[in-house]
Structure formats: C-alpha cells, structure tokens
C-alpha cells in the first residue's frame, strides 16, 4: 500500500491540466475571435440554389461546378436561371423562383450521335494497337476507321459522361440513353471527331451521318453513310432538310416527323427514333461482331 499520491505525480497532473486547459482556452478564444472577425456573409439564396441544382458538377452552365453557378446566378441579376442543362425546365423554374427572375423557356435537348457506321457497316483501315481512347487513336492518321468522319468506337464519350448515359453498343457505337441524358454537353466536347450534337428531344427523325465526303467515297467507306444524293432534301414536304457540302442536314424546327425522308433515303442513314420498339427490332437484327481492336487488346 502506498500512502496517498506521490507529490510529484500530483504536481505533473496539475501542470498538465493547467497547460492543456490553457492551450484549449487560447485556441478556443482565438478561433472564436477569428470566426467573428473574418466572418463571411453568405447569401442564403446561394445555398438555396445550390440545394436545387443536381450537383453533378458537369460544367454545362459554364461555371466551375454547381457551387460556382449558384453564386453567380444569385449575385448577377442579368444571368439567366436556365443555364443548368441537366436540371432542365424544372430546375430552371425553381432557380428562377429563388432568385426572383423570370422563368426562362428551356427547350429540352438530348445528345445524339451522328454516325451509324459501326463495325459491320464501316470497317477499319488498319489495326490500331495503341492506347484505347478516341483521342489517342485519332492521332494515328486520323484514326483507323475507313470513314474519316466516323465514330472511332473507343468510348471517349462513354468515359466522359458524368451521368452514365452512354454505353458502347455491340457495334462499338455509343448508345445514348435518352432518359438518362441531361444534355450537359460533356460528350460533345469529349468526342474528337465532333459527331455528337445536342438536338431537341422532341426531334425524333435524325440524319445520322457526319461525312462531308462525296457519294462514291462514302459508299466505299461505309454502308450506311449519307452519300449526298439530296433525295430527302427534294422529297421533304416541309423543306426541313438542306444539303451542306454533300451532307443532308435536318432543321428540327421544321420537321413534322412525316417520315418521308426515312423512306426515301437509299442508304438508310435517316433514322426515326419515334418508335422505340422499331429501334429495338433494328438493333437486334444487327449481327454482333467483336471489334478487332478489342480482340487484339485481350490477347
């Protein structure tokens, strides 16, 4: 048995208590002072807008993430509340309400791939054995696809999509899930061939080719490319299709989905996305074929 506490021990305990207590108090007071002195007044609107935004930080609005847009839209009275592409009209209306601005009219858009030349429609010019990325593949003589305008199929858009709306299909063409797509435009920027465009979601008839080559060149390169024959342009009752340098271009504002062009097109480049069942049936018909490049990489 020892009698009571050793005086030295007591001394140390007291000193430690005083010291740690003192340090704690100094830090506490210092931080409280700092918090008061350096307090930043935050606009409650910013937080409200931030809560409404989807929070994907995709940058479609042109600001550094959702926080950046929230601050900008709350602070700048002239900035449109409808810049958030993923949020579409609902978010635009909410943001407009919070910031007290007029609700803008937002046309729902969706990303569309303007190429149908998959593995079995347009082949490969050579065997590409490099980094499996479109941006790397394009550095080698413009890519290995027979069509110089066509989709390379290495999935840069799939990797870029912040919403997981793009998957590479059996033909190594990106398939865009039109439900998940928010039209943020990240894939548009990611595609080195520039064949993904934002189109109005209401526009269902698309001329899915980007080739400006002349007819014979396209025919050689791809079974399904636009040969620039102009039949659709001449046949369209609404005058919605114009020819731009050997490529038919659709004016979605004029198109009435009459499908005349779909029937007229000798190359079947024009696709009607009105009926999902029809699209599904067509996809099943396509023969599955593993792309060369993938097979080589797996060895």
């Amino acid at each position, binding site marked *: 048995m020892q009698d009571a506490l050793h005086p030295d021990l007591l001394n*140390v305990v007291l*000193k*430690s208590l005083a*010291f*740690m207590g003192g*340090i*704690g108090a100094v*830090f506490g007071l*210092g*931080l409280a002072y*700092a*918090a008061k002195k*350096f*307090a*930043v007044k935050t606009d409650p609107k910013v937080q409200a807008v931030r809560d409404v935004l989807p929070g994907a930080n995709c940058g479609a609005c042109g600001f*550094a993430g959702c926080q950046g847009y929230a601050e900008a839209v709350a602070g700048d009275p002239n900035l449109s509340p409808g810049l958030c592409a993923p949020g579409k009209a609902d978010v635009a209306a909410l943001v407009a309400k919070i910031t007290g601005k007029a609700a803008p009219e937002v046309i729902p858009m969706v990303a569309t791939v303007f190429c149908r030349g998959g593995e079995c429609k347009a082949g490969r010019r050579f065997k590409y054995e490099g*980094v*499996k*990325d479109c941006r*790397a593949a394009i550095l080698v003589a413009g890519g290995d696809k027979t069509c110089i305008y066509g989709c390379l199929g290495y999935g840069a858009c799939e990797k870029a999509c912040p919403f997981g709306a793009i998957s590479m299909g059996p033909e190594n063409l990106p398939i865009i899930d039109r439900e998940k797509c928010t039209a943020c435009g990240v894939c548009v920027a990611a595609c080195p061939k520039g064949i993904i465009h934002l189109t109005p979601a209401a526009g269902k008839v698309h001329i899915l080719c980007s080739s400006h080559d002349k007819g014979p060149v396209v025919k050689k390169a791809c079974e399904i490319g636009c040969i620039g024959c102009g039949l659709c342009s001449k046949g369209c009752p609404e005058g919605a299709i114009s020819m731009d340098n050997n490529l038919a271009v659709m004016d979605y504002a004029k198109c009435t989905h009459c499908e005349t062009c779909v029937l007229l097109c000798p190359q079947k480049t024009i696709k009607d996305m009105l009926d999902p069942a029809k699209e599904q049936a067509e996809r099943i018909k396509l023969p599955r074929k593993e792309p060369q490049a993938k097979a080589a*990489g797996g060895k």
Partner: protein
Amino acid sequence: MLKDLFTIFIASAVINNFVFTRYLGLCIFFGVSKKMETALGMSMTFTAVMVISAALSWLVYRLVMLPLHIEFLRIVLFIGIVAGFVQFADTMLKKLNPTLYYKLGIYLVLITTNCIILAVPLLNADNNYNFLQSLTLGLGSGAGFSLALIIMASIRERLELANVPKPFQGMPIAFIVTGLIALAFLGFSGLITI
C-alpha cells in the same frame, strides 16, 4: 550551420522521404494523386501548413512544455496545434482570399489529421532541433511529399489510358507502382553520411 540545414533538407525530402521510405501519409497520397491539378494544389497547401505548424509546435514545445517537464503530452498537443491552426487558416483564407480558398480549401481540411503533419513536430522534438532546423525539416518533408505526389500523379494519369489487366485496375496497380518507386528511392540511402 548551412551545411547542417542542407543535410536535413535533403535527408527529409529524398533519403527519408515520408511516403516512400517511412510509409506515412499514404491515404492522402493515394487519394489526391489521381490528377496532376489536385496533386499540385495539395502539395502547395501541404508544404505551407507543414512549415507553419512545425514553427508553432516548436515554439510551444520549447517555451512551455520543456520548462514544465510535460513532454509526454506532445502528441495530443501537436494534433491540437495543427488542427487549431488549420481551422484558423481556413476561416481567414475564406475572408481574405476567396479565390485561394476555393482552390485549396478542401485540401486544408484533409490535412488536419494527416500523419506526416504530426510526424514533423514529433521528429523535431525527438531530435532536439533548433528553430531553423525545425523549419527546414518541415520544408524538406513538404518538398518530399510534393515530389512523391507529383511523380505519382504523372504516372497515374498515364495509367488511366494504359491497358491494365482487370484485377489490377485502380488501387492495386497504384500500390504496385508505389512499391516500385519506393524501391527506386532506396537508391538514395547512403547519399549523405552523417
């Protein structure tokens, strides 16, 4: 004197690199080395916090703890000092330089409980370094960590595009690469003999 400081700097930055030879701070190392941009931001913030916290810890340790003979409390105290300082810097930056705050603010919070930040004041205390030597150790460790982060970030950016076998994708290949760099860093041992 100068030679001594140089030795401490080189030793802490390269020979005893915290990440590759002492295996400290690995969580942040793997967490922020995915992109060069974040790696650079983290490196700068880390080095700044390291030097300042080394200085603060040295002052408190030397002026208060040693005279009172309560050195055994140093781990608790150093954590407190770093956390307090980081919190203070966070509040201050937000007000004084919002641009810098949005660039480096997220890293500041991550640093608070980092083990390298804690190891530097502890090493300073154990080695009885004077004020300048403590600062140099802080700076050297910061430089060493930055070096590690930048090397790793540049490798991982390339790994993103490489054809890595499925079981090794992501973290496993990062660990293997780290192991290889650590082996390479062993080559620095014996660079300076004290």
